[in-house]
């Protein structure tokens, strides 16, 4: 099956500055994909390239089989975008906005479809109020409702949870998951709220200063980052907890695992071994694993580490070049 979104070696320059530099990624149909990065990382530029608002300086962008800058109309038949902050027609009501925008392109839209979209984002009660009276959160919800009519095959959302209250965030999360799982809608979610992205997406791309630092599954990003903390006891129940922990540390160190002793607890460095490997080593030393705790660093820390690694690598390359 061909990709819903395909970005191949794309560079986008504004004058001499490269806002995106040789970025490649592919998103499969029905996937919930995250696009993360700090301000100025190139997220917005990439979204505008996907929407056909910008043309790539180099490389190729394809959405649903079409090049968006050249065939924007064809792409937009099945793709919807909601940019942040939402720009809306201030003098129209939410209902008018959704209905009129849905009709662009010549498709007839049933009032029921409009009502359903407004209900999905919780705007039915204020649907006939002018947009200029809306709060930021309501504007965000309206932007999403606009993107839902008619139902798209591809939905690209820029910071969709910004300004939403916790209840609305939960409702949005449920809505996106339902769209993806029940209707096979491909969703691209751009956000700097990494926790939000982590709770929803299967895969993500990390952009930093226009470069793609990572693109893959969150598990892949986490691989080797989980720290194991264990509490052990002797099998025969003879020695105390402290001496069992010392014995376990010695057994693990003998296997090349730099375990750190903290009272009765052993801390194993990230990526040094799996839980099963640790259990096997302890069994061999006649020790029993009583408790274990897997420490997962937050996604922010993992991404920060990637950014730091990339910076160190580019510094190294620069130093090498000057020598």
């Amino acid at each position, binding site marked *: 099956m061909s990709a819903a979104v395909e970005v191949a070696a794309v560079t986008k320059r504004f004058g001499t500055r490269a806002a995106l530099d040789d970025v490649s990624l592919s998103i499969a149909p029905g996937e919930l994909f995250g696009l993360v990065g700090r301000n100025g990382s190139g997220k917005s530029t990439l979204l*505008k390239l996907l929407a056909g608002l910008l043309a790539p300086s180099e490389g190729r962008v394809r959405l649903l089989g079409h090049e968006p800058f050249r065939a924007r109309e064809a792409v937009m038949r099945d793709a919807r975008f909601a940019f942040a902050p939402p720009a809306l027609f201030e003098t129209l009501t939410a209902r008018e906005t959704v209905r009129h925008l849905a009709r*662009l392109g010549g498709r007839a839209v049933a009032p029921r479809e409009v009502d359903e979209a407004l209900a999905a984002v919780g705007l039915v009660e204020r649907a006939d109020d002018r947009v200029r009276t809306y709060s930021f959160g309501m504007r965000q919800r309206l932007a999403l409702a606009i993107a839902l009519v008619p139902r798209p095959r591809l939905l690209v959302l820029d910071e969709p949870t910004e300004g939403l209250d916790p209840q609305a965030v939960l409702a949005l999360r449920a809505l996106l998951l339902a769209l993806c799982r029940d209707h096979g809608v491909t969703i691209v979610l751009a956000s700097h709220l990494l926790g939000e992205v982590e709770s929803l997406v299967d895969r993500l791309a990390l952009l930093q200063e226009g470069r793609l630092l990572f693109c893959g599954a969150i598990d892949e990003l986490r691989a080797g980052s989980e720290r194991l903390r264990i509490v052990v006891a002797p099998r025969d129940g003879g020695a105390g907890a402290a001496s069992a922990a010392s014995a376990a540390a010695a057994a693990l160190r003998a296997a090349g695992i730099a375990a750190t002793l903290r009272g009765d607890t052993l801390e194993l460095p990230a990526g040094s071994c799996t839980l099963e490997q640790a259990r096997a080593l302890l069994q061999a030393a006649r020790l029993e694993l009583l408790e274990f705790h897997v420490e997962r660093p937050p996604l922010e820390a993992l991404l920060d580490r990637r950014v730091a690694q990339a910076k160190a690598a580019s510094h190294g390359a620069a130093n090498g070049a000057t020598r």
Partner: protein
Amino acid sequence: MSERLELLRLVRSRRPLLALAALLLFLVLMLVGFWSYAQARSGGAATFEYTYENKSYFNGLTFALYAFFFGFVLLLPLFAALEGGAQLAGDTGSGTLTLLLVRPVSKTRLFFGKLAVAFGWTTLLTALFVAAALLLGLFAVGWGDLRLYPGVLQSAPRPQFLPRDVALQRFALAWLAASLALLAPLSLSFWIATFTRSAVNAVGAAVALYLVAHVISEVHFFEALRPWLFTWHATAWRALFREEIAWRELAHHAAALLGQSALFLALAFRRFRRREEP
């Protein structure tokens, strides 16, 4: 369709009300100006029925034609430029153009939809202005036949006389011709609006260019440039108030106006279609 959406947005905006209020105020000022002038000339004996030095010459139709001419030169191009600026640059600046561009509608359709609504509104505004000038003339001054002497309203070498009913028909023709002439400043503002994200800048630049072109076309020193300036051709509709209409001359001016409008529109459309939306 995009035209329906643009029309709804125009109706809901403050622009129509602002334009109508400004034009009505202008008409009232014109009327007060004529009255005060007549007061000065008649030693304070003038009434609104005869507000000029020669009561057989000045009536509601003369007032309407004066008001229409000066309104056409001074105000209507401003509102035409305002539409161009608001429709393209305003949408670009506020980000609502993006909202339209991420729907399955071509840039061609969007551009010409906006143009159609802007031109339609300018035409309606011109009609309302002419109608208001005639009504104000009727009620404040009273109607009669239209007599015109060589001067600002009529460049014919001898005085012209049009019976009232014929003059009213000529007003209808003048409305159509003037509306067509306003396509030029409208197209110019569309073109300028493709260069900027600010409606104010687009309108300001279009009005400034219009004024420069208008001044140049009125100064005899630049006579050789006149055929190239749309402002020179724009007021040719005055010839409709001659006893014998010089259709060939009018057609020449109309062709020049349409040609220049088409050029501005072609440049605007080319840029709009190709440009990126950063």
